[in-house]
């Protein structure tokens, strides 16, 4: 039970940290100042949630590891994040669509956890994260509509983003053995149970944006088993550089 809770928390924490780090790569590069601030703020929310989850995982594990050890000293194959969140930023359309797909899952997921988790510590984190995800959902959803229903160029780019990212979304609903066990014990919501709400939110926004979800004959999965695209390694190399080069460094 303890091992499975640890594993399930790590999966969620890794999703948040990897996506938070991806968004932070936009800092200073976004298409306009307001969006630069927005992406940095979204990144902060995700990294903040990741910290709370890693801290709880470390406490559950009880082996003296800290949130920093879990973030900086695990290798690529130990990372259990979804493939969706590690996808490179691409253009702004790719980034905002990736954010929308993720938030449309996490907002209902955290809301359900806040209302129904049997673990008070998870209810506390979830209640906080659900409020933040509601903002992410609204912000990214507005952009998907604006760009999809915008100029020929912005529409063309959103079509390309949907084609590039949609086949990573089935993995949102895949439960690892740890996630399955935690759902069975009432600690975390069942991931598959978010399907109806996700379909509703994504269907509504894509339709408003004039975009069509493609059929996905071969969903891309594997992140929960530590099987990642090569891009995650590049990201971790940069993110973990300092602790790898100067172990234990602090400031």
């Amino acid at each position, binding site marked *: 039970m303890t091992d499975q809770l640890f594993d399930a928390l790590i999966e969620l924490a890794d999703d948040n940290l990897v996506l*938070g780090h991806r968004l932070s790569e936009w800092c200073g590069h976004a298409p306009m100042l*307001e*969006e630069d*601030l*927005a992406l940095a*703020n*979204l*990144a*902060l*929310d*995700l*990294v*903040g*949630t990741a*910290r*709370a989850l890693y801290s709880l995982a470390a406490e559950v594990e009880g082996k003296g590891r800290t949130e920093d050890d879990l973030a900086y000293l695990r290798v690529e194959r130990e990372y259990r994040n979804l493939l969706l969140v590690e996808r490179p930023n691409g253009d702004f359309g790719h980034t905002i669509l990736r954010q929308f797909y993720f938030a449309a899952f996490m907002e209902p997921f955290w809301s359900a956890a806040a209302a129904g988790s049997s673990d*008070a510590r998870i*209810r*506390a*984190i979830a*209640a*906080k*994260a*659900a*409020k*933040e995800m*509601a*903002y992410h*959902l*609204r*912000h990214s*959803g*507005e952009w998907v509509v604006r760009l999809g229903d915008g100029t020929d160029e912005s529409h063309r780019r959103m079509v390309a983003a949907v084609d590039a990212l949609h086949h990573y979304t089935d993995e949102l609903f895949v439960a690892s053995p740890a996630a399955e066990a935690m759902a069975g014990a009432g600690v975390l919501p069942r991931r598959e149970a978010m399907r109806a709400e996700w379909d509703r*939110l994504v269907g*509504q926004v894509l339709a408003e944006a004039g975009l069509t979800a493609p059929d996905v004959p071969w969903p891309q999965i594997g992140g929960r088993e530590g099987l990642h695209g090569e891009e995650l390694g590049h990201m971790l190399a940069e993110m973990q550089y300092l602790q790898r080069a100067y172990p234990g460094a602090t400031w």
Partner: protein
Amino acid sequence: MTTRRERAWAAAAAVPDPEIPVVTVADLGILRGVRDEDGVIVAEVSPTYMGCPATKLIEDAIAEALHEAGFECRIERVLSPPWTTDWISEEGRRKLAAFGIAPPVGGANSKRALFGETVVACPRCGSTETERISEFGSTPCKAQYRCKSCAEPFDYFKCI
């Protein structure tokens, strides 16, 4: 005669928010309470947003204020129940508006409205003819608005 706990509260409550120094941590409702635990003052502090970079700074400032007032203290971070903008006091709302930041409008539980619009009054001229420039502003807890009547841009302390 004031109690030890009341004196500790007064010292901690007077700490200004580092990003909006016109309001105190008590005005914002970030300081949830203080209690006396066997001679150690425990200050309960809630972050506004989980990733708010000011959280650590605020906790350190409260600890410093308590130390200076002669208390041994410890900070306890409280996530549950989650902080909401409903906890900002009336006094805090007045101070925010006077500072040029529109205080949060309405209750905190309107999240289901995916594309809902809130009417935010301009803190300078009071006009409700305003438009949102960006959902995100200079800190995670604020959005950017512009007044169409007096043309002033301003921050809005958004509802969560």
